[in-house]
């Protein structure tokens, strides 16, 4: 089992696509060991995307697992027109958006804990101490405020911010995942950031 910390890059390595297609072909023939490797390769990113969209660990766990199972069921229909990673992302994103639409306004946050590095991250410390008038606000409070603000948006706007600003995906990748053009991605991103900035005024206004 690969440890989460081992892979910090957002894009696959240069030789990864070849190995990936090999794994996909083996999985298409019913090789579950190959599929297990594919799951391990993308589990963190798929989970993280779903988690940031739902702000709920239990929902993210179920949806991420369901996405991998659905991808396996549909694997025979995967022809390699896009990368397996993008195709998998689309399944997870569509599943999550459908889930959120069904859930409508019944948002219940179940947030993951902040990792150990948060308090030691100089950028975040500087940000909180310099750029927010609420210096007394604890990290937990900021986390809750940020997640609550994210949940007020429509799913496409939330998704575009999660993919770009939280996960660092490029506009091109986001456009491919969301099946729209880059202009749409940019306009959604601008609108979403504007909205978020107004929602977090108390925390972002320079002191």
């Amino acid at each position, binding site marked *: *089992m690969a440890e*989460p910390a081992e892979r910090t890059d957002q894009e696959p390595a240069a030789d990864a696509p070849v190995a990936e297609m090999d794994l996909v072909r083996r999985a298409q023939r019913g090789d*579950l060991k190959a*599929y*297990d490797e594919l*799951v*391990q390769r993308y*589990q*963190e990113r798929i*989970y993280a995307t779903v*988690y*940031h969209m739902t702000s709920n*660990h239990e929902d993210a*766990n179920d949806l*991420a*697992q369901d996405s*991998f*199972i659905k991808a*396996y*069921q549909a694997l025979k229909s995967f022809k390699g027109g896009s990368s397996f990673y993008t195709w998998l992302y689309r399944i997870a994103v569509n599943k999550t958006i459908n889930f959120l639409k*069904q859930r409508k306004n019944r948002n219940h946050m179940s*947030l*993951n*804990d*902040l*990792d150990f*590095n*948060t308090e030691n*991250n100089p*950028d*975040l410390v500087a*940000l909180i101490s310099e*750029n927010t008038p609420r210096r007394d606000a604890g990290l937990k409070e*900021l*986390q809750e405020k*940020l*997640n609550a603000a994210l949940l007020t948006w429509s799913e496409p706007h939330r998704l575009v*911010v*999660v993919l770009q*600003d*939280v*996960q660092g995906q490029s506009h091109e990748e986001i456009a491919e995942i969301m099946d729209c053009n880059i202009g749409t991605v*940019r306009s959604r991103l*601008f609108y979403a*950031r504007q909205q*978020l*900035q107004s929602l*977090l005024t108390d*925390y*972002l206004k320079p002191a």
Partner: protein
Amino acid sequence: MNENENDFGTLRQFLKFKGHETPPPGYFNNFSGDVISRIRAGEGGGFSAEAPWLLKLLQVFEFKPAFAGAFASALFLLLVFGFVYADRPESAPQPLLQASVQQSNSFAAATPAALAQPAEPTGIIAATNPATSLQPVASLFNSQNPFAQQVSFSVPGN
């Protein structure tokens, strides 16, 4: 766009904060194992692959409990309807009997061979209900059985 992105610099830094939200330690150690177990258990190609309509129906039930309730009520009503009609067999054979008598009468009158036969029902009527297809029940007990003989036993030496 760059200018806009600079405007949102602080916000984007702030959003990176979310990247520090991590699941419980060891969570990913079992994740792929759970997925593969679920696939092996049949979720990867069971009825969901063979009957996607059933999977969709179950998903609708999951997300719309009211729909599931309506579906269950409809099934229950159908069951009750079936029981009510199954418990009333007497109402149906009567018109059937009359119809068969009328039909045999009209048929007998129309054929010359029927002149030699009485235009009454022969007594053998086909019906699925055993209670109406037999001769009157009283005749079974009042008439003597032609195959039964009275016997008497005498024991020698008494």
